């Protein structure tokens, strides 16, 4: 399976897989680590998964799978990056409230960070806009930049604590890791679905 990942990322074989890999998508070490971890967690999840066909159950399961994906990614990166540390901290905090990983997906009282789920925490955006939102032209560049960096901070985990420089750096690494993650998940889904 891992070899398939490697080959799919390196070779252009449209006949074998419909997922045409991009030219600049090599199988990095982090990616392989993530793949391994993710597969392990998937197998664990499928073993312990109750087969309830209800949609709510499905939703929770998919939420749990998403969390598992992010957690695996963060573990593969390790503590090198601020965003991975942030993810690990948040998830471990979530886990402390709900000791079992399974229960985590079942209960919905979890205070999810905004970047994991699109919760309705939009007040942060409004708070920093001092001038009225009457027209776009009235706001000068500074306001626009501030708003955008705020948005970026929301999206990138651990972004609230960093200045712009490190925020951009973290975003770059986060984007590469996300792309890897998506690729791995797609390949897995392709193989097993």
């Amino acid at each position, binding site marked *: 399976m891992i070899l398939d990942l490697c080959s799919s990322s390196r070779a252009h074989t*449209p*006949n074998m897989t*419909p*997922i*045409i890999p*991009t030219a600049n998508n090599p199988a990095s070490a982090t990616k392989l680590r993530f793949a391994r971890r993710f597969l392990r967690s*998937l197998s664990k999840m*499928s073993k312990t998964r109750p*087969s309830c*066909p209800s*949609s709510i159950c*499905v*939703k929770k*399961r*998919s*939420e749990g*799978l*998403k969390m598992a*994906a*992010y957690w695996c990614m963060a573990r593969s990166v390790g503590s090198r990056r601020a965003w991975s540390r942030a993810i690990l901290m948040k998830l471990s905090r979530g886990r402390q409230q709900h000791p079992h990983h399974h229960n985590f997906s079942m209960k919905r009282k979890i205070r999810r960070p905004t*970047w994991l789920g699109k919760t309705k925490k939009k007040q942060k955006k409004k708070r920093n806009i001092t001038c009225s939102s009457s027209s776009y032209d009235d706001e000068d*560049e500074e306001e*626009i*930049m501030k708003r*955008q*960096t705020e*948005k*970026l901070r929301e*999206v*990138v985990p651990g972004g609230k604590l960093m200045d*712009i*420089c490190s925020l*951009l*750096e973290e*975003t*770059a690494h*986060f*984007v*590469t890791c*996300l*792309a890897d*993650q*998506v690729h791995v*998940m*797609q390949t*897995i*889904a*392709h*193989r*097993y*679905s």
Partner: protein
Amino acid sequence: MQPCSREMQGINPLSNSSSQIPLSGHHQIQNSQMHHFDPSSSHDDFLDQMLSNLLSSSWLDLNPKPFWDDTPPPPSHAAAENVAFQYDDQASLASKFRNHQISSDGGNPSTKSSTTTAALMLQAQHQLLMSRGLAGAGDSGLLPMPLSLGGGGDVDRSRNDVVDGSSFKSPNPGGERSVQALYNGFAGSLHGGGQVPNQTQQFLHPQGQNLGGSSGVATTQTPASSTPAQPRQRVRARRGQATDPHSIAERLRREKIAERMKALQELVPNANKTDKASMLDEIIDYVKFLQLQVKVLSMSRLGGAAAVAPLVADMASEAGAVAAAVAGGDCVQATASGNQTPPSTSNDTIAMTEHQVAKLMEEDMGSAMQYLQGKGLCLMPISLATAISTATCHSRSHLVNNHNQKGPSSPSMSVLTVQSATAGNGAAESSVKEGVSVSKP
């Protein structure tokens, strides 16, 4: 000057010179200076020349500013600033002195280089002296000197300007006395002990630098404007500005940010925007898109297509060029049982792709298009696709569903995805590599 040389040997540093204002003390100081100058110049001759030159040059040109009124180095400046200011002074002084020297007399060609070093330094010192406010009569100025010499040690340890200020109190338009004052002050600074060598070293070094070549004179004349010539060594960009460290830090910070933005630009597709704001927008959208992809993938893998299907069906009524729909509930149900059983067929894969595209199109068309592009797929009208498929005869067991471009709101419409041989090819030229899964209404 023979007396000078005679006294040179017996001279100790200036701790005992406090009582000697006249020429003997002057010589002592000279000698101590000489000691210091040893590495850089010869002993007697250049001093003679310096003296003569200094005496001959018109000291009255230099405008003494009252020390207490004017504050050339505001106390708010850091010591480094003061040193820089002094460097400035010395640089300008060096140039002035050089001009003086060249204009007054040819000097001794033999010792000119060695002369100028020390001479310029003395000149600089004197300028400092004058600029620090040499007010008052000549005689009275000398009196504080010895006091300063004695107490100069303590004063020196505090700050440069304080040292200079206290020791260079004599106005001394007179040549000899001015020289004495200069030497006294310099000796006073020498006397300071630990700090002194630093000072003198500092004084020496810019001189050395400035005298690097004849071109150095020209550059030192305008130290502030020489910074554009050195874009690399930017530690002291603009001199004499209070916001100096802040502006430098600000500039560095901006450069770092620009560099990181460029790196991000390469990562994110559609990075042809030059505007920073729009680039940030693109980045944010791309991150959101990737996170959405993860979400969709996690849903579809669990067979959450049951949840996806109603969402997709809602979109079927969407007007526009393309409408998306679930490619047959049957295929979906087959995959819904989970990831254990069904054999991998490209049919299911295509179904999954379609699900994802449908989901994405629900959120944002742009992201859906991007997603397709990332996979090397494109959207095309079904009529064209059928034409191609029949032409190339690559179709397998899958059926191609036709979707009308005008978009009748039939729930069984499906998105036609065509594999393109190369990503850049137009749809018309692409050959259908794989069949597309389809469901007939």
